[in-house]
């Protein structure tokens, strides 16, 4: 078996393990010690990976004009979310969180949201990017 195939198998195994972890985590009930421990361990795990990969963090050069478009759109998102949050009833003024609630009504939905949250944290903080 070549080293390339070994790396592929290792990555596949890791993905399956993380998916299994997300499935199990999504099945736990909120407000329980086990769920607190799982979420805390997930946060600590991402934090540990981020700390390990802190050296050589690349800071890309950006143009203010390019960043402005993102700031404006994210600001608009915040305005729509705030307007909805401050209004009631929730059925007529859905927020992002109430929409996520609908997805999280099922176990597969909660698994997907948990996996997205974990993946987002890893991608943002722990992923070691090449310069």
């Amino acid at each position, binding site marked *: 078996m070549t080293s390339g195939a070994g790396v592929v198998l290792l990555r596949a195994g890791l993905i399956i393990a993380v998916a299994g972890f997300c499935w199990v*985590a*999504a099945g736990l009930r*909120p*407000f329980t010690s086990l*769920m*607190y421990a*799982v*979420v*805390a361990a*997930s*946060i600590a795990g*991402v*934090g540990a990976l*981020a700390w390990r990969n802190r050296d050589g*963090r*690349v*800071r*890309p050069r*950006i*143009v203010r004009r*390019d*960043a402005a*478009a*993102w700031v404006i*759109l*994210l600001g*608009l*998102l915040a305005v*729509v979310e705030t*307007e*909805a*949050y401050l*209004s*009631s*009833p*929730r*059925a*007529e*003024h*859905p*927020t*992002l*969180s*109430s*929409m*996520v*609630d609908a997805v*999280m009504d099922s176990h597969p939905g*909660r698994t997907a*949201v*948990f996996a997205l*949250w974990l993946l*987002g*944290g890893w*991608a*943002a*903080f722990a992923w070691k*990017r090449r310069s």
Partner: protein
Amino acid sequence: MSAGLTYAAFGLVFAALLSLEVVRGSRRSLTFGGLVCWLVARVPTLAALFLVWAWLGWHLFARGSVSFLK
């Protein structure tokens, strides 16, 4: 705003965000990932974003997202 208008507003903003990501990606310009990369390259913004991410996970899963509901 009725529910339909709210969903439409969210949809428009997300469509604009997605379009910007696609255009920026094709032009090798500043994508959302690039913006995040820039933000987390500095310790203060890294710490702030990490805390926001951790808080989001805590409220969605450990506390149940019921806490978001009015």
